[in-house]
Each structure stands twice: as C-alpha cells, then as structure tokens.
C-alpha cells in the first residue's frame, strides 16, 4: 500500500523545519513505506536507523568529540 500524500508532505515539511536535508525526509519516507508493506526486519530497522542518523546535521557543539 502506498503512503498517504498528506503523511509524506508532513514528513517533508517537518524535516525542512528541523533544518535537516531533504535526504533525511527521503530516508524516513522509504522506511515508512517499507513498514507499511510489512517488509521490515529488525536488521532492516537497524540499517535504516543508521542511515538516517548519518544523514542528520547536528547543531554546532554536538559532535563525536563529545563522546
């Protein structure tokens, strides 16, 4: 099943408002789409989460160095 266009738009707008790149929205939408089709395993979830995390832009001051 396809995702509702309103849901897709809401994700795109929220990502933009959070100051993140459009690729974050694309990754989130792909994850939602796969979940809605029931085609997601725990490994998939983990991989998709990693992809989104690495696509995120963090505020200044939060970096790997802090850890």
């Amino acid at each position, binding site marked *: *099943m*396809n*995702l*509702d266009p*309103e*849901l897709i*738009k*809401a*994700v795109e*707008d*929220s*990502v933009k*408002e*959070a100051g*993140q790149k459009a690729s*974050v929205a694309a990754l*989130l939408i792909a*994850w*939602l789409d796969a*979940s*809605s089709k*029931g*085609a997601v395993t725990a490994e998939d*979830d*983990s991989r998709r*989460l990693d992809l*989104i*995390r690495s696509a*995120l832009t*963090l*505020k200044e001051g*939060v*970096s*790997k160095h*802090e*850890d």
Partner: protein
Amino acid sequence: MKINILGWKSTGLRSPDIEVTLEQGHKVTPVSFIQMPNGTGKTTTLDMLRAALTGDAENWTPEKVLTYKNQDQSEGLFVLHLAYDDTALTFEIKFDFENGRASYRTTSPRIGGVKNGWNPPPDVRRFLNNRFVRLFIFDGEFPDKILKAGESDAENAIDALFQLYLLDEIAQKATADWERHAKQVGSKSHKAQEHALALIKTLKARKQAVENAKTKAVSRLEELSAELKELNSKIKKRAGSTQTNKKQLEEAHTLQEAAKVELANLLAQSIALMRQPHILHDSFGAALVELKDELDQLKLPANTSSQFFVELAEETECICGRPIDATAKKAILQRSHTYLADDISGVLNSLKHDIGLQVESPGSATPEKLSRILQQIEKQAVVVREYAQTIRVLIQAQIEEGDTQLAQWTKTHEDKQKEQATLALLLQEINRPPLDTDRVDDPDCHCLKYLVCTLEDEQQKLAKITKTVLLRSQTNIIRDITAKAVEKARATIKTSLTTDCNQRLRKVLPRSPLEIEGIGQHVSLRGQLDASMGQKLSIGYVFLTSLLGRGQNKFPLVLDSPAGSLDGEVREEVGKLVPTLCSQFVSFIISTEKQRFVDAVHKAADGEVKYLTCFKITKGTQELINRLPKKGVVKTANGVLVDGEEYFDKFDLKEQ
C-alpha cells in the same frame, strides 16, 4: 495492507451450523448481503468475527463462553477464513462448554502452517486488535462514540487508517536503540550509570502514569460537562413542575441568565482592555510615550515610497499646487533620499502613530477604566451567586415537600460537581510550572513539566556517562521530526476529512442539514451537541467510509442492520456510498431494511453482489423449508443457507 473475509463456518453455537463463503469462483465478491431474520444468531456471528480477529475469546470468562452454547452441545467451533495481501490466514476458535473455555488455532503459510493459539503473522497482527477491528466489523456504538465528548475514537480511527502510528514506531525504535547502547556501553562511572538508568526507569513510569491520568481527567471532564448540562436541564424542568415555586423559579432563572450575560460582557470588555499594556498600568503608558519621543523623525520606507517621488517629479504640478519645472524636478529627485529610510521605518511610523492615538489622544481608555470594570465584575459575580442561591433554596423547598426524584438528581449534580472540581485541581497540578520543592520521590508531585524536564536531564546525564551524547542528539532529532510530522499530518487529514464528510453529508441528509464543525479527538457538529439515531448512523457511515476510502489500508466493512434507523431517501444515499468506498462490503440485513437500500447498493456495485439468506430450522420455519428453491440450498441439522438473489428478494417480513 489489504484484508478480505473469504468466509466462515460455525458449529455447535447459538447461530445455525452453516458455512458461508463470500467468494465467487476464486474472487471475493465486493458486496455480500446475508439476510438473517431476528433471532437467527446475527449477534453471535458478529461476536465470533470480532473474537476471531482479535484473539479476545481466550480471555473470556466461563460465563461469557457459555452464552454462545447451543442447547445440547458440549463443544462449538467457529472458523474464519481471511486473505491478507493475498496470503491465506485462518483462525479457529474451539469452545469447550463443559469447562467454559475458548482456545484458538491459527493457520497461515506465513507462520509455517498450523499453530496452536491466536498467532497471526507479525505484519497483520498490528491491525488485529479492538481499535482496528471495531472500525471494520462495525460496532453499533461507534457512531455514538465518534460524536461523544471525552471519547477519542475519531482520532484513533484516523491514526489507524492513515498509518500515523508508523511514525511513532520509528521514534520508539530510535529511542530504544539509544537506550540499548546506553545500557550496553561499559562506563568508568558504573554506579552513576546504574543510578541514572534506575532513575530514568522511575521517571518514565511516573511520566506515563501522569500522562494517563491527564488523558483520563480531560476525557472525564468533557463527559461531566455534558452530564451536568443534562442534569441541570432535568432539574430545571422538574423544579418548575410544582405551582408553589414555579413562578419564583422562572423569575430567578431569567434574572440569573441576564446577570450571567452581563457578567460575560464585562469580562469580555476587561479582557479587551487588558490586551492594551498602557491600560494595565500607568507606567506602561509613560514608557510607551517615552519610547515614541525617542524614535527618529518620521521617514518613509524606501521600498514602497521611492516610486512616489519619481512619479511626482514627472507631474507638471506639485501636491501643494505650485508648478514643477526642471529645477523643481531635479530637487525632488535629489532630496527624496532625505525622506526615505529602510523598510523598518514603516513599522516605526505605525508604532509612533498608534502610541499617539491610543495612549496620548484625549478620551482614550485609561487604567482607571479597567479598574472600574474589574469592580463591576466583582459585584456582578456576587449577583450571579445570589440568584444561584435563590434557585438552590427554591429547589430545596420542593425536595422538602417530598420530591425524591429531584432530591436524587440534585445529589447526583452535587457529586458530579465535586468530581469536576477534584479533576480540575488535578489538571491544574499536572499543568503547573515546576517548583523548587518538586521531587522525583514525592508521590504527590504530578507536575508533568517537572517530570519531563527531569527525565530529559537524566537522559542527558546518562548520555554523558556512557559517551552516547551524539547518538542521543540524533535520537532527539528523529523523535522531534516524527512527533511534528504526526501533528501536521493529523491536522491536515482532519481538515480535508471534515470537508469530504460534509460534502457527503449534504448528499446523504439533504433534508436535515447537518454539518461537521471539526474533528478533534471526537467529531463535533456545528450548532448542536447531539443528533438523532438516524443522523448519528449517517455520520458514522460517512466518517468511516471517508476514512476507508482515503486511508491506505484496505479493510472489509461489515455492517449489522445497516439501514434500520434510516429513512428511505437516506437509505438510498448511504447505499450508493458504502460499496464504492471499501474493497469488500458485508452486510447482515433483515427483510424490512432491504427496501431502497439493497437496490442502491446493487447499482453502486455494478451487480457484483452475493445474496445469501439464512434461517434456523424451527417449527415456525417449516413452511419456508417446504418452499425452498431447487438450487443453491445448504441444509444442516439446525439451519438453512440459500445462495441466490431471487430467494433473497422474495424472503420478506410475512415469511419471517
């Protein structure tokens, strides 16, 4: 996800032992009518469908299990065949009436064949709970609940069918992943890590409990408000029923209403005045005048005003009437820059103008005016209370004369008011800002902001201890984005759904206009609190079919007595609407509701309709058995099922 009901079979239950198939060849019929006279076991069949889909029967009490027992049977069986995204799935419920137990068996290639227990494959499991199932195996109470204040069925339905829960799931997965890392990472401050983890666990539980209490309180307060309104109206009617105090009561009510209106006017005036800072206190006014005096001399915003000077220089006469020659033209263009400033000057000009007008001009409102209105409010509130006291005294007099009904309603009213006050206090405590005295270990601390902030702080501490600050920041961003997206999607879906529903309502109820004002947690109607049963049912169908038509998951829609409380015209409109908006429509129907509904559905479904008629074998139905058609009849020990349109049409009320 697309779910279809292929058919079911029941034996040993209160409904007849029959096997129903909703397929024609290997294709599911888009519309199926199952005509069952009253007393044939419609309710039992619907209960079985719900129980098979939700797995609830395992938790039924022995007493409840026994309500489905057929007279002499010690065992019963209900089998439901489904297809989800073209995969077969079967649920069997076995009833052991001797021990009052129900047990399940599930069959699907996606779970490796047959398994004991209620074990749907994971991808379909999320839809098989009461929240979803009540949407498509239509719960007769649903129309009532989507309209009832305090219920959140409308919002739940939207979340379910538009898959908004998927966003919550992503946020939960991200949070769980950070927590797992934070637990697994070994840290030098092992004790601090353990302490932070324990505290986070406690805070999460407390936060959840307070959030639940808040939801419950808000919902109950909405209910109480409606209940008190109804009780008030009953008490008012009853209290005016004896001649002795009827006139006095009417007068007191009229005067109280007038006093309330006056009080509301005064409050509105005071709020309007309070919006102007210089009226709140003299010092604000003085400060505003000082600000105005210190602002630059008036200038014009260049962006919007420079063209004015260019065009003026082209004119033959100036605005003062003097001729504009070449020298004047040059001067205007050169000197225009002196009067132009950047665009902010437009705002400053407005500000100066407004301060002059609102604060300095004679006759403008002053703090004294607000003070006078506040005094009037106090006096008016006393007047309203006095009338309320008069009404109470008059009601009490009637109670003392022996009106027990009035006494009971008044007592209930008082109790509900107390409950309302207690809940309002609880909400005040939950919503208040954090205090220095708040403590995690104080069970009486219900301040949600304090709990949220403390949880946030502790999670940040844990992130630092376990060196997962980066991971946590990323998790927070994901959580914020998904939360915002749910909020946005919900709002836009509700708006467009309201428009869709209202368009359909105008068609379905052309003679009794009804409009949905908005969809919050429940559906609210414009200009009315309640609706008739027929109107509620129409709203329920319109809401549900609009949802089913737009949502991305395709569920069948099973309705019991779909047209019972609808009049002819509304039946036709609902009949036209329903089958076009769901992938499979199954309707249990009695003969008296067929008129104008079945034909409308038939046309809308282009004739792709399965017509089934089912009745029990009893002495009273012997005449029907003698006149059964030659084809399409399945007869069992206690029931008959006839497949065919002609028999369906002829089977009428007289024969029932």
